[in-house]
């Protein structure tokens, strides 16, 4: 498949122990587009993001990649390769910040990538002074920055973030927004799940609301 430009998710449904989380949701992710997804707690936003990134299998649904209809099994492979999901509280692997970034480089054929690439990302994320520090000992905001740096090294075309600015101070929010702006400029499609959509006003292309298991565009 050529470069992934557009992912269409149709009629996605998912239940948990017979409780519906999302019902027949239709959503599209376009290359270079910045979207914000809002909704009350427990409406299934995180589940939707995990389905969109291939981490969770929907009960029903159809996925079109570049307008080509694929089965879930086929689509999942592409979703894992081309999309990236960032947890609200990102997981830091054992070891240093540098090792965490290196693990991301390994994934998409960058195992021989120059150390310089990591150094550049460390610098742009203002993490170079933490390079050798154990990632798990960093503060929540710093870990979020490591996760974003890891994402930017990963070369994914579609980035899905779950509450990326929750519990961040103003300086960290600004730094994160700059980082996302740069990714958008490079053509990465970004979907942010948040309770504070106004934070992303300068970047926003599209605002979505998940309500009563269904998505509305505003």
């Amino acid at each position: 498949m050529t470069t992934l430009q557009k992912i269409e998710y149709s009629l996605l449904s998912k239940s948990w122990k017979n409780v519906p989380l999302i019902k027949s949701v239709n959503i599209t992710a376009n290359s270079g587009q910045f979207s914000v997804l809002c909704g009350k707690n427990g409406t299934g936003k995180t589940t939707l993001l995990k389905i969109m990134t291939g981490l969770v299998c929907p009960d029903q649904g159809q996925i079109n990649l570049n307008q080509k209809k694929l089965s879930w099994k086929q689509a999942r492979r592409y979703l894992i390769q081309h999309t990236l999901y960032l947890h609200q509280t990102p997981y830091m692997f054992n070891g240093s910040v540098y090792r965490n970034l290196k693990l991301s480089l390994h994934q998409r054929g960058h195992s021989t990538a120059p150390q310089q690439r990591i150094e550049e990302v460390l610098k742009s994320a203002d993490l170079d002074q933490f390079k050798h520090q154990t990632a798990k000992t960093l503060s929540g905001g710093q870990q979020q920055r490591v996760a974003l740096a890891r994402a930017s090294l990963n070369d994914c075309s579609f980035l899905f973030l779950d509450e990326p600015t929750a519990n961040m101070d103003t300086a960290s929010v600004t730094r994160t927004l700059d980082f996302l702006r740069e990714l958008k400029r490079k053509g990465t499609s970004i979907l942010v799940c948040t309770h504070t959509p106004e934070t992303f006003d300068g970047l926003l292309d599209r605002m979505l609301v998940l309500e009563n298991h269904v998505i509305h565009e505003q």
Partner: protein
Amino acid sequence: MLSLTDATLDALHLLISGDSELWEIIGISFRVSGTAILISAPLALLTGFFLAYFEFPLRRVLISLFNTLLAFPAVVVGLVVYLMLSNQGPLGDWKLLFTQTAMVIAQSILCIPILISMGHSAFQAADQRVWETARTLGKTPVAAFFVVVNEVKFGLLAALFAGFGRIIAEVGASMMVGGNILHYTRNIPTAIALETSKGNFAQGIALGLVLLLLAFFLNATLHYFQGKGSLNH
């Protein structure tokens, strides 16, 4: 009868002088138990991983079953393997009874529940985000599995050491299916039982010391790596 002090001194002398019979028994013990661990660990740890990370029918029943098997007496395992491998048993044609292979089979059966149960606990200690992060970074399922293994390696190491500790020190199953044959299936615990019944305490104590030293070595190794891990996290 020798006093405990005399017997211990004799035991140390046997160990230091390199008594060939004694060291042969030690070698058989390590070979049999090491093989049993090597054979059972991959399957058992993979099972622990699936139990921790995936939902499937009868998952909870399996967890309870493996936890129950932790209390399975070694002699009962020995009895079952004996019945399977004896001439009248379904696997009698394989002529494995009273061989080291029979001991490996029995010891594998004994350590599998320990490895699964402790492996499951170790994998469970790492939350779902480890797997999800590895996968979303583009790792294949196999590569993601090894990322998770790296995150919980100390727990898995503890499982391996506990399993090895249990089987190298068990006497019942080894005695029943190995037959305690000198130069072939006599291992440390069966030798201790035999030498004690003969009143030869020195060799019994010497072998007991080896088991104690082994336990100390395994614990010290685990603590060393855990300590190193906590410094680097």
